[in-house]
C-alpha cells in the first residue's frame, strides 16, 4: 500500500531524454517504505555507461519526488550498477549539485541539458498532435492558423501543453499550435512543412532511442517493461 504511493511519486520522474516516466521504462528496481518513514529506492539503467548527467538528473528528481510523499521522513535513492554510481549517490544525498559531485570534470549544471531535451519533447509532441490533423487533410496554412484550444482534446495534446508550460512557452487555449520551441514564436505558413519534418524526425529519434534503451535493460536485467 505504502509502496504504491512511492511509485506514484516516482511515476512523475521522467528520463529527460526519453520523456517517459522511469517507472514505465523499468528503471525502478525497488521501492519500499518502512513503518518509521524510511523510504528506500533503488534505480537501475540499461548500461554501466549510461551518461552520468542524465543519471544524475533522474536520481535527484527521484529523491525530490519521494521526499514529498506523505509519511516519508527520510529518503534514500540509490543508483546501482553504474560506473559513476558513488559520485551520483553521494552527490544527491548531500544535495551537492552535479558540478560539485564531479569535481574537476563537469562544468555546467544540468539546467541547460534539461531545457534542451524539453524542447525536443515539445517537437516530438508536436508531431504526435499534428499527424492526425495532417491525415484529416489540414494544409500547412490551416495548421499555422490553429490555436491549442481549437485542436480536439487528446492525451498527446495535454502532454504537449504540459511540456510547453514547463519551458515557459505559451500553452493556453489562445496560443498557436505551432511554435518554435526555443523562442516561442508562431511558425508561419511557409515554414510549416519543414517544421513538421523536424518534429517527425525528432519523434522518430526519441522512439528509436527508447527502443534501444528498453532492449538493453531487458537484456541486462532479464525483465519486461513495467
Amino acid at each position, binding site marked *: 500500500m505504502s509502496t504504491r504511493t512511492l511509485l506514484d511519486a516516482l511515476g512523475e520522474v521522467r528520463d529527460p531524454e526519453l520523456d517517459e516516466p522511469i517507472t514505465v521504462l523499468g528503471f525502478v528496481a525497488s521501492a519500499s517504505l518502512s513503518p518509521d518513514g524510511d523510504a528506500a529506492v533503488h534505480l537501475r539503467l540499461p548500461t554501466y555507461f549510461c551518461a552520468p548527467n542524465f543519471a544524475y538528473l533522474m536520481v535527484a528528481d527521484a529523491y525530490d519526488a519521494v521526499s514529498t510523499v506523505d509519511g516519508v521522513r527520510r529518503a534514500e535513492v540509490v543508483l546501482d550498477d553504474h560506473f559513476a554510481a558513488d559520485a551520483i549517490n553521494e552527490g544527491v544525498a548531500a544535495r551537492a549539485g552535479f558540478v560539485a559531485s*564531479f569535481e574537476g*570534470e563537469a562544468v555546467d549544471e544540468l539546467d541547460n541539458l534539461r531545457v534542451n531535451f524539453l524542447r525536443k519533447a515539445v517537437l516530438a509532441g508536436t508531431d504526435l498532435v499534428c499527424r492526425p490533423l495532417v491525415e484529416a487533410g489540414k494544409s500547412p496554412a490551416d495548421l499555422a492558423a490553429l490555436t491549442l484550444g481549437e485542436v480536439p482534446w487528446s492525451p498527446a495534446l495535454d502532454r504537449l501543453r504540459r511540456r510547453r508550460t514547463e519551458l515557459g512557452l505559451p500553452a493556453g487555449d489562445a496560443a498557436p499550435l505551432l511554435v518554435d520551441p526555443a523562442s516561442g514564436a508562431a511558425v508561419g505558413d511557409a515554414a510549416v*512543412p519543414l517544421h513538421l519534418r*523536424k518534429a517527425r524526425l525528432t519523434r*522518430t*529519434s526519441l522512439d*528509436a532511442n527508447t527502443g534501444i534503451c528498453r532492449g*538493453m535493460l531487458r537484456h541486462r536485467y532479464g525483465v519486461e517493461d513495467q
Partner: protein
Amino acid sequence: MYEKDGEKYFIVDSHMHYWQAGPETWVPGAENYAKGWIECFHAYQGLGPPATHWSIEKFMSYTEDDLMKDVFQDGYVDVAVFQPTYLTEWYKDGFNTTERNAALGEKHPGKFIANTRWDPREGEDGLKKLAENVERYGSKGVKLYTAEWREGSRGWTLKDPAAYKYLEACQELGIKNIHVHKGPTIWPLDKDAFDVSDIDHAATDFPELNFIVEHVGLPRIEDFCFMATQEPNVYAGLSVVIGGLMHARPKFFAKVMGELLFWVGEDKMTFGSDYGIWEPKWQIEGFVDWDYPSDEFSDYPRVTTATKKKILGLNAAKLYGIDVPAEYQLPAAAGTPAAREDAALVESQ
C-alpha cells in the same frame, strides 16, 4: 558477394572489429570498466535474432576462425574495414588495435582494409605514430573516439586546435575517410559524446575529407540529420542502425531509414555490421529483403535495388577506392555511389 532474385550485391562491411576482452586482458584496478564495457557490447548483441546470440565467453574472445567464417564464409562480405578502438586504460594490450587488426589482415590479402586511429591528446608522438601506421598498413581511414578516457581526461572534440593538426596530417598522409563514433551510451560528463556540432565545423574546414558518422549520432539522429543535410562530405555510417533496430524494432527501423534517406540520401549511407557485436549474414539478408512495412511510410524516399547496392557496398567502395567487378556495378541511370551532392532541401508537402 550476395545474390538474391538474380541481383548481385558487392558487400563492403565498413565498420567491424577484432577485439580481445577476456578477464586476462583487464587492467588491474579498471576491471569494472573493462567488464562493463564488454557487457554493454554484449547487451547490444541481444538486439539481434536469438539464433545469432553468443555466450559472453565467446563474445569476449572470439577467434580468427570465428571471424573468417562469420564475416566472409557465411557473411557474404567481399571487403571488410577494421575500425580500431584502443581503450588502453582498461585493456592491457588495447581492446581492438591497429596492430592486431593489421596482423590478421596480412594473413588474408585483399580481404581487409586496416584503418588506424588517433587522439589529439597524444601530441607530437601521436602524429609520428599516425605517419608510421599509414606507411606500414596503408591506412586510408581512421576511427575516432571522441569520448575516450585518457589520463584523467574524459574526451575531446574535433573543434580542438590539436585535432585540426591531426586532420591536416590526414590530408598530407593521404587519409581520406574519417569515421567518428557518435552513438549510443557512454560517458562523458560535460563533453557530450552525442554532440555532432564538432563534425559540422571539421567538415566545413576540411572539404576534401569524408566524415562518416558511425551510428548516425544515435540516439539523437535529428541533430545528425540537420547537420548532414548541409554538409556534402558527411556520410551516415549505418553500424548499429541495421544491427540494433532492424530485428529488434522493425517499425522504428523503417522510420529511421526513411528519415536518413530523406535527409542524407542513399548516396551517403554505408553499411557496417559492427562485428563481433552482430554477424553480417542476417543483416545483409534482412536488408536486401527489406522495404517499408506499410503505406504509413509513403512520403519517405523509395527504397530500390540500387539503393541497397549502394548502401551495402558501392558507396564504401567508392570512398575506399575498391575495384568493383563490372557485374556488381549499377547501370548509369541509377546514379553515382557516394556522390557528394548537397542533400535536396525539403520540398513542400
